[in-house]
Structure formats: C-alpha cells, structure tokens
C-alpha cells in the first residue's frame, strides 16, 4: 500500500494548526511546518515570526508583489501582514531567546522520551547547519515537533534516546505525527490523541519508549 505522503503531511499540518490560539505569536520552521500557515483559521488573529527579521508574515506574493527584499527564514519570497514590523536578526533572536514567542512548530528527525530533539544533522551526510533551530527550541514557550511517526524504513522516530546529534536537550513539549499526538511530561511520554484510528497498542508498537495512557 503506497502511503499518501501528501495526505499525511496535511493531516499533521491541520492538527498542528489547532495548537495555535488567537493572539499567539508563532514561529513555523522550514519545510512541513511552513505548511501549517495554509490551514490557519481566519477566526484567529495570529502573528507569524520569521527569524531573519519580520513579525507578521503574509501570504506568498503575486507576481506583481514579488520583492527580493522580503523573504522568510526559508528564503521564500513572502509578503508582510497587516501590522507587521521589520527588524534585525539580533532583535529577532532577542524575541525568540527572551521567550516572547508563544509557539514554535518545527520538524524533527528523532525525539526522545525526555524531550531531547535531533533535527539538524546526520553524521556522514553533509552538514548544512542548524540555522535558528537551536535558539528556537530554548526560546519558544511551547515547542511542538511535527514529523512522521516512523522513518521510511519503519523504525520509530520517537525513541528512548536520540542516536543523532542533538538540537536541544529536554526541549520538546509536544509531538504531532501522522498517527498521534504525544506530550513530553515528567512521568514520560503521554499519548494524548490517536489520529489514524489505531489502538493504543498499535501506536505503542511504532514508538520506542513506553507510552502512558492519558
């Protein structure tokens, strides 16, 4: 059975959108997290931050609006939303590090049951750099990781201990996958929601650490 990856990503993005409250300041990571913006309810007043120096990311521009001086942290051309502000990258990370961002939604390679996150390098593969991820995971009030529940070869990405180099230690609050929503707590990983109709046991099967029933 071919997995419909596009549908999986949409499931994750739609579920992640629910983490955002009206009035929140939100940073969406590069890649799948950027998609969450497409599903943002119009009832919510949300300001998206871009770590290069913009508070208030708007939609992608039309051909006429396209401006090389206006990009997001993924280097995509964007527009500025109503009430936006431009500033330097130092101010941008002051904002992040100073815990002014309510929610950061980032991608993940591995998350450990204690909240450790690995999402920036695979030894042996070319290092591209961590960008702003190491700052974001310590700065945002709530750090949500969205990723596939298991890797392409079926091994768990939610693990007892990360095997990949860490982005941050004990930084993840919540994990949203195509199959489930899990919270990192002092007692361990709590399975909050099942998104694909599986049983608790089936989710446990695909997850390395022992899960706690909500």
């Amino acid at each position: 059975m071919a997995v419909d990856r596009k549908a999986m990503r949409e499931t994750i993005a739609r579920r992640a959108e629910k983490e955002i409250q009206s009035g929140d300041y939100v940073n969406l990571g590069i890649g799948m997290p950027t998609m969450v913006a497409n599903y943002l309810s119009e009832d919510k007043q949300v300001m998206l931050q871009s770590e290069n120096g913009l508070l208030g990311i708007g939609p992608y521009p039309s051909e006429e609006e396209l401006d090389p001086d206006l990009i997001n942290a993924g280097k995509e051309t964007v527009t500025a939303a109503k009430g936006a502000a431009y500033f330097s990258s130092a101010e941008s990370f002051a904002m992040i590090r100073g815990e002014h961002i309510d929610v950061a939604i980032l991608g993940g390679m591995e998350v450990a049951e204690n909240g450790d996150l690995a999402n920036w390098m695979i030894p042996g593969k070319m290092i591209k750099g961590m960008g702003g991820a190491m700052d974001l995971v310590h700065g945002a009030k709530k750090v949500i990781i969205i990723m596939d529940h298991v890797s392409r070869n079926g091994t768990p990405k939610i693990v007892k201990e990360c095997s990949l180099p860490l982005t941050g230690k004990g930084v993840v609050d919540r994990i949203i996958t195509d199959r489930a929503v899990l919270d990192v707590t002092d007692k361990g990983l709590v399975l909050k929601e099942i998104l694909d109709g599986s049983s608790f046991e089936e989710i446990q099967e695909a997850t390395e650490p022992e899960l706690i029933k909500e």
Partner: protein
Amino acid sequence: MKQIFSSPDEIIEGIEDGATILVGGFGLCGIPENVIQALVRKGTKHLTIVSNNCGVDDWGLGLLLEKKQIDKIYASYVGENKEFERQVINGELEVELVPQGTLAERLRAGGAGIPAFYTPAGVGTKIAEGKEVRKFDGREYVLEQAITGDVSIVRAHTGDTYGNLIYRKTAQNFNPMIAAAGRTTIAEVEHLVEAGTLDPHHIHTPGIYVNRMIEAEQENRVERRTVKEA
C-alpha cells in the same frame, strides 16, 4: 563626511590576504553584491568570512568560494551550495557552524564591546563542547564570545553622506550588527542622499559605524521564488 567611492574595486583597497571579513545578508537577500564581486576580481585570498550563509554556486559569497578565496567560514546554514560541500569534504574549507541567534548576538556583542555572554542555545549539544556551561536560576547556559572583523561589508537601501543607513524590509537581517562589528565598515547603498535629508527617527545604523560608502545598482537575485497560485 564619509569616504565616498564610485568604484567597488577602490573601496576594497587595504583588505589584505588573510583578513577576517564580516558580510551582511541572509541568503541572497541584502548582500553587498558589488563589493563581493570586487573581492572576487581582486582575488584576495585566505579569507575568514563570517556570514549567516555562503551564497549559492554562482552568486554572492559563492563566487569567492568558487575561486577558493575562503579558508574558513562562520555561518549558521550553508546548505545551498555544491561547491561548498566539495571544498569541506576535501578539507580545503574549514567551517564553524554557529546557531543563528548566537551568531547574531556574537556579532552584536562584537560591535557593542561585550566580550562574552551566556545563551541557552546549544546547551547539551556539540555546539557547547569545549565551552563553559553555567547555571543561572537553575537553568544551563553556554558562554559564547564576541565576533569582530578587520572589515565589515553591508548593504543598505538608503545611506546619507554622514554614513547613516536605512535598510529595506527583510534585507536588514544581519547588516546592522555587522556594520558595528568591523574595524573598517564598507556600506554599499542603493541610494546615496545628502546628510540632513533622512528622518533621524528612521535610521537603523547611525553613521558612526560606517567608514566607506558606495552607491551601486543591485541585481537583487531571488533565491526561492515563491508566488501564490493564481
């Protein structure tokens, strides 16, 4: 009055082989493209470059890479560049990856006379290896040191003859901190105006940080053209 140049080849005079150069911009946005090209033409070698990224294969700092003018680079993300990868693998290029916020703050510290500061970014990761880690209020932080350079090269939208700079939209990015962190700062501006014509409230980089200026037309390449579906 600042030194105003009309040729990018002249504005880089005095930049020696082995210099540490801080370069503004994020991706290809807000980079001082004409001054970079002058460095390529001159062939200045063994450079240490500090910049958030390293351009792409045929533009921005990628042009310096192509001519093997860079020995070492400090950056937060360098994934856009095949030649970069080749040189790192062959040991021709040394790279020190710095978390983006830490890079921005180390540069700000450099310009602001702060020799070092503590940050949570990187605690418990490779980035903190060999660095002091210390607790404040029960939380761990890593000590990071300021970055300064022999020369800073920035790009602004408007500059006046006293060196005051105004950046446009997200082309601001690392430019203000880099303008302050170099011993000599070169500003490439799209529009040069007389001092006294800019509103003092709107200035992002006060002229005190700027030494040399040039007005130059920008190609302003787009790295990732994304438009909404019609």
